[in-house]
């Protein structure tokens, strides 16, 4: 028997009470680990988002917003100016257009619906007259107009994989991608559009009077985007007789520190004919809810650590008060303060370490679900729901980037790294030490003569 073995033995002295203490401590320690994992995972996500978006600048032709608005596209000269601007490391140029029934033999996979009817009420196309009573016109609109069919978006780009083209989630489900730097009559077709028109790799369709070959079928998880066609920029420029024209450019800046100055330089050189915006601001907004989770997680770590410290502190204070006479006897028969305090510290450590083993195992099990639950609860808050909830088919050119927040939440992966685990162990040790300080002080103050005289 020595100080350590006596301390360990004492930890099993009241199995029921110490078991309850271990359980409460374990829950607190498990919570500490879960919150550390949640915080770390969210911080990683925030850093990823900021790193990817923090250096992005979008240049749009002024007045054009998706397929709405008006104005003139950017010119080849504009593109050259942007390319040559200091700190611009790369650009992705995009030209968007819509295929109406007279432009293509493709049929849209999206139903018009009342939303589409309202959006299209200014256009005059098709041949079949409809009336408001069929439900496709806005309520109260009694105007008689020709039948309208949803159009198909077509995007010409220098990089089909750019998030500015597809929201960053394009996958080729069959076939292969296109050579976006070329001008071949090839295209990637969205999976919904391909299904609607029985297209597969190698199939052809007509657009702008030309035969286009399907190079591959893509999927983005977005109903609007999956009803589209992506082709090389030069091809679309040629097909639409708009040589050199682009509607949008996504520029990557060499460093986030140079973003503001580059935006200023672009605005100055391009004038009022373009809108230059930094994605960093949008990214900040996008990750603000994640910042909330990170703060909440940190508060959780602190709260759980305080709870754990309080539990072990109160438990050991009660133990010391109960065993005052025993402490007095130990000192009376020659036990030094160091040995007597050491015995109780070992007892405290034994309880805490036992709780830590249970708690850390518990934390490993629940950290993933807890991180997801935090992300889900935050993403479903009203402030963010307005930007994440989109009906299939709606949005598209107007909503590009709005899905980023949803992506932020859905892509959070809870991962327990050795550093996080060691942090949790460190906090646990801190809890044990802090929880032992007051009891140790109380033990040191016990005077055997007083205890043996009064008790």
């Amino acid at each position: 028997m020595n100080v350590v073995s006596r301390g360990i033995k004492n930890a099993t002295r009241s199995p029921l009470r110490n078991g309850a203490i271990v359980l409460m401590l374990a829950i607190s320690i498990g919570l500490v680990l879960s919150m550390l994992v949640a915080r770390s995972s969210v911080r990683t996500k925030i850093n990823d988002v900021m790193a990817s978006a923090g250096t992005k600048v979008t240049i749009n032709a002024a007045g054009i917003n998706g397929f709405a608005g008006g104005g003139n596209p950017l010119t080849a000269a504009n593109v050259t100016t942007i390319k040559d601007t200091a700190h611009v490391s790369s650009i992705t140029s995009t030209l968007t257009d819509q295929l109406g029934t007279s432009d293509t033999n493709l049929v849209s996979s999206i139903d018009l619906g009342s939303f589409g009817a309202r959006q299209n009420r200014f256009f005059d196309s098709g041949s079949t007259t409809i009336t408001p009573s069929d439900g496709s016109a806005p309520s109260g609109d009694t105007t008689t107009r020709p039948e309208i069919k949803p159009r198909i978006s077509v995007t010409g780009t220098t990089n089909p994989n750019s998030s500015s083209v597809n929201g960053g989630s394009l996958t080729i489900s069959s076939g292969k991608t296109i050579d976006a730097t070329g001008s071949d009559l090839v295209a990637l077709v969205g999976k919904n559009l391909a299904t609607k028109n029985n297209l597969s790799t190698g199939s052809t369709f007509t657009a702008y009077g030309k035969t286009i070959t399907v190079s591959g079928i893509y999927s983005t998880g977005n109903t609007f985007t999956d009803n589209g066609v992506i082709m090389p920029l030069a091809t679309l420029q040629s097909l639409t007789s708009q040589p050199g024209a682009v509607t949008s450019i996504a520029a990557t800046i060499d460093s986030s520190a140079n973003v503001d100055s580059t935006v200023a330089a672009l605005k100055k050189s391009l004038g009022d004919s373009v809108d230059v915006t930094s994605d960093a601001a949008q990214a900040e907004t996008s990750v603000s809810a994640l910042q909330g989770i990170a703060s909440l997680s940190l508060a959780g770590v602190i709260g759980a650590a305080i709870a754990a410290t309080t539990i072990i502190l109160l438990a050991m204070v009660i133990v010391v008060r109960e065993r005052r006479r025993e402490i007095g006897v130990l000192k009376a028969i020659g036990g030094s303060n160091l040995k007597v305090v050491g015995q109780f510290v070992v007892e405290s450590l034994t309880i805490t370490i036992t709780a830590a083993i249970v708690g850390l195992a518990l934390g490993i099990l629940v950290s993933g679900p807890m991180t997801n639950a935090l992300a889900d609860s935050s993403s479903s808050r009203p402030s963010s729901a307005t930007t994440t909830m989109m009906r299939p088919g709606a949005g598209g050119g107007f909503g590009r980037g709005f899905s980023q927040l949803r992506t932020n939440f859905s892509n959070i992966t809870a991962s327990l790294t050795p550093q996080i685990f060691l942090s949790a162990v460190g906090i646990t040790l801190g809890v044990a030490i802090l929880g032992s300080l007051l009891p140790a002080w109380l033990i040191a103050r016990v005077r055997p003569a007083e205890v043996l005289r009064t008790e």
Partner: protein
Amino acid sequence: MLAVKKLTKKFSAPSGDVQALSDISLKVESGQFVSIIGKSGSGKSTLLSMLGALDIPTSGSIEVDGVDLAKLSSKQQTSYRAKTIGFVFQQYNLIPNLSALENVMLALEFGGHKSAGRREEAARLLKQVGLDDQQIQRKPARLSGGQQQRVAIARAIANNPALILADEPTGNLDSETGQKIFDLLHKLSRSQNTTIIAVTHDLDIAGKTDKTFTLKDGKITTK
């Protein structure tokens, strides 16, 4: 061996200072078995606490083998309690979750006995005071009062102390068991030349010791 000179102890109380011991002087030679008798509150246990370096005098001195206890540092007092004296309490004061053997091993550890051989030495001491192999493995709650006091005595003599301080060692025992415990202490005093100072109410037992001091209101009235 033990010399107490003009020992005074006062305690502070809400109603004012309480004089527990007043101008106590006594001498005890090595190997003597001394008893201290007196009514409750006469200062017997306070005197024992002073002799055991559990408390410090208000004035006066206690010298054991020429060493003034009041001048010992806290660390030296701890060492003194571990090696020079052994305590036997009326309530036994054994550690409840340790076996009889482990209680004695604890005293050996505090006395600086090497861990190797500690168990064997504790078993030898317990057998010396009359416990068998099964009894030494039991926890205090599973031993009788007399057996617990034997364990306490084995614990007190574990480090071959020069002085054993016994506070009502037979107070919780029936007369027959009390007599046996007294005989055990008497035997130790004689065989190991250990000085024993025992506080007792039992005048029969006091009458069999080498010397008896009577305390009344904190003062020695008879020697």
